[in-house]
């Protein structure tokens, strides 16, 4: 199963590092990562592989939200199918 992680918020040191460390601790592999910073605001998107993940999707999703709150950014993880259904015929 693949997930899409988005991170939005004011840029500061350690955001990507913190998210990636959490993913690595839970055996989640990063397949693609891209980011832009406009006017000091970070907009990052990751595609991750959750097939070997140690926890359930909903638990990981809650943990990432919490991680984001601690860093004052919005972190969201969604199952890739919502994007596939909407944008692929």
């Amino acid at each position: 199963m693949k997930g899409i992680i988005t991170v939005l918020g004011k840029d500061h040191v350690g955001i990507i590092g913190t998210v990636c460390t959490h993913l690595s601790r839970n055996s989640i592999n990063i397949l693609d990562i891209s980011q832009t910073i406009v006017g000091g605001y970070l907009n990052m998107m990751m595609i991750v592989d959750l097939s070997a993940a140690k926890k359930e999707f909903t638990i990981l999703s809650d943990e990432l939200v919490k991680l984001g709150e601690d860093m004052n950014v919005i972190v969201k993880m969604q199952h890739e199918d919502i994007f596939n259904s909407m944008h692929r015929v």
Partner: protein
Amino acid sequence: MITRNEVLETNQMIEESNLDVRTITMGINLMDCADADIDKFNEKVYQKITTCAKDLVKVGDELAKQFGIPVVHKRISVTPIAIAAAGCQTDSYVSIAHTLDKAAKAVGVNFIGGFSALVQKGCTKSDEILINSIPQSLKETDVVCSSVNIGTSRNGLNMDAVKKMGEIILQTAELTKEQDCLGCAKLVVFCNAVEDNPFMAGAFHGVGEKDCVINVGVSGPGVVKKALEEVRDADFETLCETIKKTAFKITRVGQLIAQEAAKRLNVPFGIIDLSLAPTPLIGDSIAEIFQEMGLQEAGAPGTTAALAILNDNVKKGGVMASSYVGGLSGAFIPVSEDHGMIVAAEKGALTLEKLEAMTCVCSVGLDMIAIPGDTSATTISGIIADEAAIGMINNKTTAVRLIPVIGKKVGEKVEFGGLLGYAPIMPVNAYSCERFIKRCGRIPAPIHSFKN
């Protein structure tokens, strides 16, 4: 590979334009609960509902988290009680309404529909008991919704039932006047009711359905409005194309959620209902779509045409996106639930007569309209008859959900709270239709019903 723009577009729809899965509604057949003893019937009904729907709320919440889209309501529809309870030896179905209320609360859903009767051609004894039980049931329960189908294009209109429903609506208003006549917000009178509608208050589980089924309603007036902002003042082809593409995308999300919900609950998937259902939130309004299309206010000349465009293109986009589009699919025009409609009604731009014209091309009918509490039962019946005639002749579903607000007059307001919103009391034509309504019997089926 999914692109950044696609992710951004989807999440903007959800976060900024209020795209949501409005409801996952589980349809449950209650025919197998039949019993001559009403206490035993109630017990079986409670058991069946709480067994079938025990995981409904949990699964809805899980899906919301996993796909990152709000699943606003989890609801239940049941076999019309007038059919399911027909074998009970009793003269009141109020206890059944209590059972439905209790079962719905036990599984955590916020509405249960199906306290209903289908009387398009005539009433059975059970239909009469049900209809007579409506006012008391809606007074004494919180989450039970009721509907009565009084006509079809195939059968004509049951005018005895139309007359009766005018009286029942007034009685319901009177009994719930302490709560601003809220009971009437949970009661809808249909012509051509559909059997797989997931939206309240008119949802019931049709007799041609499977034992248990999942129907999903998706919404998103805000998404359509946002998309139309991008093509402001473009020609009608572009306008239609934009609505169609947006409806397609919204329906695809609904299809995904419906299939996942059906899989996880181990219940067959029924239909997707793509209905642009507004909420009182700013940016979640059908009237704002009209304004974006170029009307100063909802109700201005051109509104019926604008609604026809909207309704038709929502359907066209929807049917491309799912093989099983059903329910009511189109655009709802409830007054109290739509911020822009409320403003238009307050300004006098939107009248009951214009709303009636709009219902010729919307997906349902006169919805959540507050009228003066001293409106007579026969006038309410007259409004129902007009609306039903539109449905019967045009082969479409029409409905009436009027709230006669006891003790209030034109110009005053009524506040229902939450998703039901608030509404100004709208004026009703003061001329009488009493002699017309008091004629007994049926209006015969229209000529185009003879299709065999």
